[in-house]
């Protein structure tokens, strides 16, 4: 036995083996018992039964209901009138099953006519909590805080990423749509932040298997707009039509079984399965169109107003011929001067005025140029069938989205097959496999970077259509070529010549074996392998602005100023030359991931004397995740010449001198082993107590054995008052009432860059003055911290749920308090190891919150009903322990900072005082004095002068959903709300503006003449003379961008979705052979009912970071459902 396992399963097997062998003993006995019980007594008489199946609600006949003789394959479906006829054994039991209805069993007992009414089943699965660990727990005895969301209730047409469905639907879950681009993940928090430097992302579990991200994108990086965010959504490859439900596990009792991964909450997805006796084929198609954003919603100047600003700039010396015609970036004025200099335009005031007048009247609508209302289609077809012996579900879906903006098209195909076969009465095998493939295009983008000296966050060569439209002057002619990075630039042409193709392939193979060894004892074994490969190919073609910039040297001024040119240091008196004389650039980034999971669980459930129920679960898991990423940059690929590379050798020389690489490879492997157990005892369905423990080891912290293992646990209890005798006698309006409480420890891995339980050495290329001096060395990245451990959390959860007025109103309330400790934080040491500032488990945080969900039927009269759902979440946190070593710039930028005594994502501002009498902004500096450009953004010592603005994460949020139905019509109105946070406004102020920039109308209020400082807070548009005198003014203007004058409230109320659906009457459809047919029209993200006026149309959730980020559009979707 031992040897066989060794051969087949190898080392991985051993860890599982321990548990398996321990459970082997009782299972041998169990086999024998099962055999004895399998002897069935057969009767001899045969009868033919007839009847009609009706809907219990309205008495209408139900076609397509499966009628089956229990325990055999003898079955039939009802006809269009709901009638059936079946010949069965006299003693048989008939099973009536149909999707959406409760299954009914009737014993024949010699009757020949049996009419049945089926009751609609709203929450067919709601009485079970799926923990994702292979076990199911009766909801009535589940002690943890959890919410279940059925997809049929949450579905919003036209949002193919399932993670967006959770928005506002589940109390305690915060979904911030920082970007709406497909493939990017929304920022999801379950009960708020759990870590200061870590990402606090929830764990996704699909059909019992943890879904790992292919690349580690921290939650702050989700809003960066970098290309990597396109593959950040863990569930982007899932077809939402395949999903049955979401189960969100929130508190320690519910998540502690996930141990050192579950601290940020767990979201368990269950996909649809085939069911016994139900045959169906469903086809769903969605057609979505999105509205083009309008300038009416934004405060951007039109071309006439913009030209007025340019004239002011011209007066202040910004738009001279000499400087603008050779400037790196220029628009209308630059073009005009270039035309004059090349003799194509007369250098007279009349000619210039005529040229500029044309631009003044142009009023280009960049949104119209760059966005379209193209229709996106989503088709999904699924089949499902089942007999007593085997059940299967399969589906295929295809999305084709031509793109809201230019170069944002994508296609996604998914397939999902799962089948269950009952090998024996007590042995069940399930096979699941699903795959998805996606190809997506995005505008070419490079990474975001922060200049800590002047405080600007920038992105080279950004061509994001949304931010282009917002930031580009409406005086520009969309068909004309202007100058950017010294090279010709036209956004439409650039879109064609600079783009990325992202391909994502994802397959999962899964195998589950369930063996009911005894009536009370279950074993389950699960093995799964998932492979995901992502490639990002960034094409920067010969004609793109980015390629041209590498060879822009039209004049000697440009040649000497262009930073993309190369000056060879080994040649004396050399002039800058191009290292890209021909062709373009080709960047490729690949991410690969293979994950393997094995899990073995045993569950023992028995009730003694009808009062004492015990439920024990034990299990172990082994998992292994290998990740690989590659990046390389090819220079001089001649796209126009048959894609032949022509690489100048100086590319490598320059790279060697500047210490930049042209390719990179990274491999990581994470391995985990865990043992877990759970024991619950229920007395008389009234009292339940439960304890859960997990012991988990991972290789993440290196070979150090001290930090490798971590135990997590929880204890919890439930009091089901409804079952109490006294309660039943009290006769209150409460139709149900229960209380629960839990306390537990869960943990998390902490930020991915802190793994130094042993010293981490990495190779590096030290900078050297010349290429001949270079060598590769090793350095200490992090010193050993032998005490490094997981981030941990103690959580107390108290909750109650009750139903009122015969369960017409169901209310769930959960209150929790969390004590996060051992969090990774910064500690300042004596530095004798070589690092003064280190990361260690020194920080702590406290958080608490309350979650309320109220569901009820407001009105029900005849054919009309109104049900409403109200969700409210309140979550706050406070860093209680943390040393601090951040720079001013870290406190004031939009991702926030966790300072002791404040919330984990706090935003601070430079205190703005006033505009002084020359139009410059005045701030309070670190020594309490007033200053214009004296704020030292890299200051680490004195940060007390910063003003606390608030937290960046909403503290109150929720939704209000209403469903009105009348006969077959259904109107759904869904409103989400969120408040309590602040947002940093886009940095709009600079020392200088070019004739490419679009300004907001606030610039009308800018200081112009002395005295204006009394009426305005908008600083002056600087004269070039100022800048010549003091280059530090850019610090002043960036200080203004990050000052208390440039903050808005993040509060909003959003009409998230409004939909009208119609289901055709079933009896009529039956005549044409359809089981159901429905149409639905929904409008999503229709408008912000309320938002801070200071936002000027900016979406408070959306972070306009450029790159690939796009806001969630206003969209309209038509959904058609056909069932056979």
């Amino acid at each position, binding site marked *: 036995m031992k040897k066989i396992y060794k051969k087949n399963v190898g080392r*991985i097997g051993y860890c599982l083996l321990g548990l398996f062998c321990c459970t082997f003993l009782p299972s041998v006995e169990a086999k024998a018992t099962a055999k004895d019980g399998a002897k069935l007594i057969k009767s001899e008489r045969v009868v033919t039964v007839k009847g009609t199946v009706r809907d219990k609600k309205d008495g209408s006949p139900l076609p397509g209901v499966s009628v089956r003789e229990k325990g055999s394959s003898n079955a039939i479906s009802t006809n269009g009138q709901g009638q059936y006829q079946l010949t069965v054994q006299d003693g048989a039991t008939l099973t009536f099953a149909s999707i959406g209805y409760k299954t009914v069993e009737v014993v024949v007992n010699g009757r020949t006519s049996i009419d049945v009414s089926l009751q609609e089943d709203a929450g067919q699965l709601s009485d079970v909590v799926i923990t994702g660990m292979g076990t199911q727990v009766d909801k009535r005895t589940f002690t943890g805080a959890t919410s279940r969301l059925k997809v049929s209730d949450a579905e919003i047409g036209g949002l193919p990423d399932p993670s967006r469905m959770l928005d506002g639907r589940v109390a305690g879950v915060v979904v911030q749509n920082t970007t709406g681009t497909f493939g990017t993940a929304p920022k999801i928090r379950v009960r708020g932040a759990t870590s200061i430097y870590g990402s606090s992302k929830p764990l996704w579990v699909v059909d019992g298997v943890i879904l790992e991200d292919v690349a580690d994108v921290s939650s702050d990086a989700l809003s960066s707009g970098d290309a990597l965010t396109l593959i950040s959504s863990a569930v982007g490859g899932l077809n939402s039509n395949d999903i049955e439900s979401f189960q969100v596990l929130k508190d320690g009792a519910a998540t502690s079984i996930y141990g050192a991964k579950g601290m940020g909450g767990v979201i368990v997805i269950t996909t649809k399965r085939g069911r016994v006796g139900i045959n169906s084929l469903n086809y769903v198609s969605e057609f979505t169109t999105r509205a083009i954003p309008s300038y009416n919603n934004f405060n951007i100047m039109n071309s006439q107003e913009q030209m007025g600003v340019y004239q002011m700039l011209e007066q202040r010396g910004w738009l001279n011929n000499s400087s603008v015609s050779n400037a790196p970036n220029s628009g209308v004025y630059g073009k005009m001067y270039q035309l004059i200099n090349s003799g194509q335009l007369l250098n007279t005031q009349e000619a210039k005025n005529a040229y500029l007048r044309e631009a003044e009247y142009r009023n280009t609508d960049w949104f119209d140029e760059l966005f379209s209302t193209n229709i996106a289609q989503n088709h999904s077809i699924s089949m499902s069938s089942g007999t007593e012996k085997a059940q299967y579900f399969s589906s295929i879906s295809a999305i084709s989205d031509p793109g809201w903006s230019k170069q944002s098209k994508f296609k996604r195909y998914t397939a999902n097959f799962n089948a269950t076969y009952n090998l024996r009465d007590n042995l069940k095998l399930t096979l699941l496999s699903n795959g998805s493939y996606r190809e997506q295009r995005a505008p070419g983008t490079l990474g975001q970077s922060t200049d800590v000296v002047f405080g600007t966050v920038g992105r*080279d060569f950004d061509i994001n259509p949304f931010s282009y439209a917002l930031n580009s002057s409406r005086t520009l002619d969309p068909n004309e070529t202007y100058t950017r990075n010294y090279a010709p630039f036209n956004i439409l042409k650039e879109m064609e010549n600079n783009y990325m193709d992202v391909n994502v392939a994802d397959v999962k193979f899964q195998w589950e074996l369930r063996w009911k060894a005894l009536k009370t004892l279950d074993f389950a074994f699960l093995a799964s392998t998932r492979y995901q490969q992502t490639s990002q190919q960034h094409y920067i073609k010969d004609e793109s602005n980015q390629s041209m910039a590498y060879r822009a040297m039209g004049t000697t001024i440009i040649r000497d100023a262009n930073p993309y040119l190369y000056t060879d240091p080994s040649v004396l008196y050399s002039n800058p030359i191009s290292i890209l004389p021909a062709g373009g650039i080709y960047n490729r980034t690949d991410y690969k991931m293979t994950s393997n999971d094995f899990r073995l669980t045993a569950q023992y459930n028995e009730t003694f004397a009808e009062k004492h129920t015990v439920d024990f679960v034990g299990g172990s898991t082994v998992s292994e995740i290998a990740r690989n990423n590659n990046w390389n940059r090819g220079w001089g690929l001649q796209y126009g010449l048959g894609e032949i590379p022509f690489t100048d050798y100086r590319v490598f020389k320059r790279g060697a001198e500047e210490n930049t690489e042209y390719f990179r490879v990274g491999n990581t492997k994470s391995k985990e082993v865990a043992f877990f157990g759970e024991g619950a005892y229920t007395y008389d369905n009234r009292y339940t107590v439960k304890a859960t423990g997990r012991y988990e080891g991972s290789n993440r912290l290196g070979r150090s054995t001290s930090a*490798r293992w971590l135990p997590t646990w929880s204890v919890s209890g439930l009091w089901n008052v409804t079952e109490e005798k006294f309660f039943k006698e009290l006769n209150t309006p409460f139709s149900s009432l229960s209380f629960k409480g839990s306390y537990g420890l869960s943990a998390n891995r902490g930020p991915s860059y802190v793994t130094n339980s042993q010293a981490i050495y990495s190779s590096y290329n030290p900078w050297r003055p010349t290429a001949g001096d270079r060598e590769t060395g090793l350095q200490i990245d992090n010193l050993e911290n032998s005490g490094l451990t997981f981030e941990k959390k103690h959580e107390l959860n108290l909750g109650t749920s009750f139903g009122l007025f015969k369960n017409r109103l169901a209310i769930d309330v959960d209150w929790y308090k969390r004590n996060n400790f051992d969090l990774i934080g910064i500690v300042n040491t004596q530095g*004798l190891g070589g690092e003064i*500032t*280190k990361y*260690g488990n020194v920080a702590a945080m406290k958080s608490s919150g309350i979650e309320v969900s109220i569901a009820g039927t407001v009105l029900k009269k005849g054919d009309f009903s109104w049900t409403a759902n109200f969700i409210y979440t309140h979550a706050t946190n406070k860093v209680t322990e943390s040393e601090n070593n951040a720079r001013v710039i870290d406190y004031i930028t939009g991702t926030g900072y966790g300072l002791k005594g404040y919330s984990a994502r706090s935003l601070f501002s430079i205190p703005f005082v006033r505009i002084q009498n020359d139009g410059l902004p005045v701030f309070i500096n670190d020594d309490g004095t007033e200053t214009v450009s004296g704020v030292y953004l890299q200051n680490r010592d004195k940060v007390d002068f910063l003003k606390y603005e608030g937290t960046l994460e909403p503290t109150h949020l929720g939704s209000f959903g209403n469903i009105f139905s009348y006969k077959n019509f259904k109107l759904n109105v869904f409103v989400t709300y969120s408040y309590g946070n602040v947002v940093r406004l886009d940095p709009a102020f600079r020392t200088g503006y070019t004739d490419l920039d679009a300004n907001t109308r606030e610039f009308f209020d800018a200081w112009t003449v002395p005295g204006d400082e009394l009426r305005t807070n908008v600083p002056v548009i600087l004269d070039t003379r100022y800048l010549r005198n003091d280059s530090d003014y850019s610090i002043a203007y960036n200080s203004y961008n990050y000052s208390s004058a440039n903050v808005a409230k993040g509060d909003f109320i959003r009409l998230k979705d409004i939909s009208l659906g119609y289901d055709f009457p079933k009896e009529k459809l039956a005549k044409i052979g359809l089981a159901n047919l429905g149409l639905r029209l929904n409008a999503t993200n229709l408008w912000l009912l309320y938002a801070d006026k200071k936002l000027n149309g900016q979406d408070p959730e959306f972070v306009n970071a450029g790159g690939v980020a796009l806001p969630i559009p206003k969209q309209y979707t038509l959904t058609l459902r056909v069932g056979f």
Partner: protein
Amino acid sequence: MKNRFLFIAISAIAILNVSSCKKYLDELPDNRAELNNTEKISKMLVSAYPQNSYVLPTELSSDNVDDYGDTNPYSDRFSTQAFNWQDITETNNDGIDRLWSGCYSAIASANAALAAIEAQGNPATLSAAKGEALVARAYGHFILVNVFAQHYSPTKSATDLGITYMTKSESTLNPKYERNTVAEVYDLMVKDLEAGVPLINDASYSNANVAKYHFNKSAANAFAARLFLYKGDWTKAVSYATAAFNNSPSAYLRDWSYISTFAATFANATREYNASTIKANFLISTPASSAALAFGNYYTGSRYSHGNYIARQESILTTRTPHFNYGTALPAYRVRTYTYSGANLDKVLLPHVSYQFEYTDPVAGIGYIHSVFTPFTAEEALLTRAEANIQLKNYAPAIADMQLFVNNTYTVATPVLTEASINAWANGFAYSTPAVSTPKKKFNAEFVIEAGTQENMLHALLFYRRAETLLTGLRWFDVKRYGIEITRRTIVAGAVGPISSNTLVVRDNRRALQLPQDVISSGLTPNPR
């Protein structure tokens, strides 16, 4: 019986379980390196050299700079603190916190390599690496003890606060340490050096250029010579210095004719002066530092600068030199002196520190400023030997070495350096005072200096040494060694203006720079103030 068998089987599996889990989890999570072979251990030593430098704080603390007044806007809080011997709290690339962690980080790399060599059982293939690691470890501590403690003194060092000598890597998050005394630190450095220097093997580096960034034989011996000079162990200083240039100094002296072809541009001259191809450069350092801006042809840092007054009265532009009286002409160097003057600008420079920029983002123009300089040169080793010989009263070889230095550094037809010329030169000056500067500064050394010839010879030697090490921060250690007092003054219109009451007296506590703020606040004993 059956039960017993099962029990044994289960126990066996349980034990296997634990051990196989251990193996399973032993795989490293990423491509982190482990120091488990010769090549990797040697590569570890690439990072055993501090990536931060003492140049800016020590040069600004020395008597090589004057204050050009608060009307000069080109200064920052850091240089003001360094110039006035205040506790330096400013944190930038030149901040003392960086110097502290930079040196200790280099030491940590050396310690990691030494631990790995130990674990490999000290094989012969690793003896060169072991030598380099020991010398590098001593060098890191050498910088720290000289910057953050009083200078070595045979009588007081046994009680003077030194720095902690690290011989092991730090393994816990926030350990607390005690400081060793200066004498202990020197003893440990000597121990490491004497064990390490003989093991150094130049052939262990990939090529001769790369060897200039490591302790090669010349650099290691030059370092040992400097250490014994600082310690007052003159005989050893002589022998190590001799070993540094293989007993034939003229073969190692700087090839000025090549460097001076680049003299037209200051940046090119500094680059070539510090090039790895120059034989006289023993060890090259490429720290992230703004020293090259302050000591280069930029306005930056010109409030506290080596200006015309100091250059003409005390240092490189003094017309009366021990070897020649230039009269009204300025002394001519093989590569010219660079004088920059204008409104708020008065800098007299030798091309000793090279400004180079490492781009991390070429478009935004962001990156690191590197101030490339050469902490150990053949000339400096030669002057070390001369100084030690003077202390040993071997005047003839000392004069010969100084003569060699003069011939190579200055362009003068027949420079003649004799005991008499030196005595005549030194006796021609009064001792320097804040109001009237001369090249002759009063010595208050811990060791005995005979008045007359020996003292005069030392004045001459330090005069050359000051020129040789100008702008590279070493003058501060000479000031400490000889107990030279400095009084801060302001230069107004090219002449001495207000003289402040801020005098750095003999054994002034401020001669040991204060430890970084974070280090003190996490519990290490601060220097007395």
